[in-house]
């Protein structure tokens, strides 16, 4: 009985595309994800929720189209998001991206948007889609 209710509830949550984020729930981060989900649906009617696996692939790369020295998010944020990163060009330390070790991550929508708009062109040679942004946050919220 109880397991069934749980799996129904989980199914609903996953359907909203915020399943993993709930593991480390935070109202601001959830709000940011809800916003990206609405945008993703508008950009693509067949949008069916965010995916941590796609987020991982975006994070790890390698990608073409951007700058060769930063062909993955991991180039600065490191392959293990629980560890401190390092800016590939300036050498500046970057705090971990994994929400489990850095709960402040993805909680300020202006900061999050500003960095997506800078980092995606460097890595991909183009802006990230709303779905990619949500995938990325979903992956790291589960790390």
């Amino acid at each position, binding site marked *: 009985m109880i397991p069934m209710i749980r799996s129904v509830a989980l199914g609903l949550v996953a359907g909203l595309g915020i399943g993993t984020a709930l593991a480390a729930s935070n109202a601001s981060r959830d709000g940011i994800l809800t916003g990206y989900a609405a945008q993703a649906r508008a950009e693509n009617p067949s949008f069916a929720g965010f995916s941590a696996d796609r987020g991982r692939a975006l994070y790890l790369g390698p990608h073409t189209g951007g700058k060769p020295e930063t062909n993955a998010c991991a180039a600065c944020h490191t392959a293990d998001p629980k560890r401190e990163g390092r800016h590939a*060009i300036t050498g*500046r330390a970057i705090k971990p991206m994994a929400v489990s070790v850095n709960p402040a991550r993805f909680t300020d929508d202006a900061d999050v948007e500003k960095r997506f708009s800078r980092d995606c062109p*460097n890595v991909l040679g183009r802006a990230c889609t709303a779905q990619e942004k949500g995938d990325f946050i979903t992956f790291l919220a589960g790390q």
Partner: protein
Amino acid sequence: MRLPAVTLAILAAITTTAAFANEMERVTPIAHAATQKECGECHMAFQPQLLPAASWGRIMDDLATHFGDNASLDPQAVVDIRAYLTSNAGRLGDGRLTRITEQRWWTREHDFRAHIWSRPDVRSKSNCTACHRDADKGLYEDN
């Protein structure tokens, strides 16, 4: 030995390098929240004293193509940060150069062999904190 201020002033007038060394020994820490935040993401936020006002003006004129990166900000932040940097700028230095690391006083103080700059923990000349632990507090004196 501690020299009286008058002697220091005379020495400074005689050799500009001495003037720079004295002037840069104690750099005032940044006391402007927006500059600290927006200019301290990709590298340490450089103190205004490290460049003359003209150099800061050039940097703030073109944040969209900022040393190969996009550092653009909303117009009000640009106005505020420009005002802070230029009104607290250094009195000396070449205003045509936008790099601290190309200013003559800097290259004289940092005449090291090439392998130093390619050390993985240094990576770039602009990574002041790699060698000056308390550079973000304006302390460059002791290494």
